[in-house]
């Protein structure tokens, strides 16, 4: 069986979530790598775009930022921030967009904090802030979330709600006035979590090989349903080959 790193498995786990014809909103790092991998593996018709306005970039080299000149080469259109976010807020295009994002804290409904740890006015740790994350989470059809599985990150109460997930549960997004979409999966270093269609609460969909649902729970402040947990099918040799040779040969992201 093929050897692989955890980072590689997480990337493939996200890539498998991307469908053909999705428009994929990417950040930097592992999220961009997942989108590149999906395009080569399962979703050749998917389109990668960036909040900076680059649409369907060639990505001959891995960008180090969403404003990296590498995202501007051989696109369909080089636009602006205003254009990129309007595509997501627009109902017809927005519903086709899947956003890939990360955060410092997540709660049971997939709400995210990427602004501050501790009190907003007396921060223990100040983070980068929303960037486009709040916009994407407000607008698009589906989001895929990357997290490190740690108690201090899977919390009962966020220090700051930067990006809306399912808010306080079923129906709350619509009540708030947000688009119908929301978080689809959370991919961590231990498992893949999903959200219940009726309650919108997080549950364990699959654990990575050698990890037990109980171990996963040990790394979370809140309890989630483990009954649906299956074992994750590890990345295939073919998936790994594409990821390593086509997407990040310099291992800038894979390390």
């Amino acid at each position, binding site marked *: 069986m093929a050897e692989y790193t955890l980072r590689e498995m997480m990337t493939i786990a996200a890539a498998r979530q991307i469908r053909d014809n999705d428009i994929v909103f990417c950040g930097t790092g592992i999220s961009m790598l997942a989108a590149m991998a999906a395009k080569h593996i399962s979703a050749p018709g998917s389109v990668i775009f960036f909040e900076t*306005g680059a649409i369907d970039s060639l990505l001959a080299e891995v960008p180090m930022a969403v404003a990296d000149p590498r995202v501007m080469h051989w696109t369909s259109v080089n636009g602006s921030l205003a254009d990129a976010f309007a595509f997501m807020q627009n109902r017809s295009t927005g519903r086709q967009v899947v956003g890939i994002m990360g955060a410092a804290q997540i709660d049971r409904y997939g709400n995210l904090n990427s602004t501050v740890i501790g009190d907003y006015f007396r921060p223990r740790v100040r983070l980068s802030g929303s960037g486009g994350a709040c916009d994407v989470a407000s607008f698009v059809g589906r989001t895929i979330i990357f997290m490190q599985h740690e108690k201090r990150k899977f919390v009962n109460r966020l220090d700051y709600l930067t990006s809306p997930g399912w808010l306080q549960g079923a129906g709350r997004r619509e009540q708030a006035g947000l688009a119908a979409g929301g978080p689809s999966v959370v991919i961590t270093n231990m498992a893949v979590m999903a959200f219940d269609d009726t309650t919108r609460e997080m549950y364990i969909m699959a654990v990575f090989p050698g990890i037990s649902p109980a171990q996963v729970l040990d790394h979370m402040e809140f309890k989630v349903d483990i009954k649906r947990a299956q074992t994750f099918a590890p990345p295939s040799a073919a998936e790994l080959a594409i990821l390593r040779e086509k997407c990040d040969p310099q291992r800038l992201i894979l390390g």
Partner: protein
Amino acid sequence: MNSDQNKIMDLRTAIRRFVNAGAHISIGGFTLNRNPMAAVYEIIRQRITGLHVYAHSNGQGVDELVGAGCVSRLEIAYAGSGRFAPTCIRFRKAVENRSLAVEDYSNYQMTLRFMAGSMGIPFLPTRSGLGTSIIDKWGFSAELRKTDPKIPNQKLVVMENPLDGWGDADRVVLVPAINPDVTILHVQTADAQGTVRIQGLTFADVEQAKAARCLIVTCEELVEVDVLRAAPDQNQIPFFCVDAVVPVPWGAFPTACYRYYDYDPVYLNQYRQAAIDDERYRTYLEMFVYGVPDHHTLIERVGHRRLEAIKADPQTGYAVNLDRR
């Protein structure tokens, strides 16, 4: 609004004339691309303080202004420089030791605020942020807002849709217009009159430019009026928006300028190393900013070898196979 035929001036004069202590400013670019770094370093060199800065994800330039103590208030969506600094280090220190007042928005909200300013309307609506802390947590208190006529009384306003739910929207967020005293852009080409041509992504530069009361444009290349007039579909900013045209080769260094040069990983990594330690940061400022009379000297100090390494490949517009670790 300025229709002079020749707006060329040197950077020192442009900054002295248009950027005063306490001014409300915005800078162009995004994270590690096309920040007007020569202008940023000149502002630091002139020790201009008390700036109120409006930023979406302006990255490196904002962190250096904050690090040098030029900024007292910052309205921002994202303080990071891509893989080189997921969170800008001097920004983080300044917020944590509460020497900097911050108001948080999203990138689209900040973009819409500049757009509203450029359009001459008080606000623009969006569905972004409903249900989040961006709505309830105000970095600038209502009291502060009431006392300062240069900022709106509200961070934003959530309003029921007055068009009976038209557009499948019950509620919208109204974000207030921004009209900076001055916006500073670095672009690839401009002419003496001020017509601007940006290559590659424009980010929010055009909105920031048109929203500003004064506009300083630094450019890689000053070209003849005819060069830009022959293909006006590719120009973004008409000359009458521009107050100063400042030719500055390598003016975005150490950030990238598409089709001219890439970002410099060496500089950005050294910056990160310096930024995490106050003593080392002082040394950095002495060596690379206060210690040089102008951007040209900084570029010379960086040296031919590194500049060659980041020169853009004419096909792709970036430095192919550049070592970016």
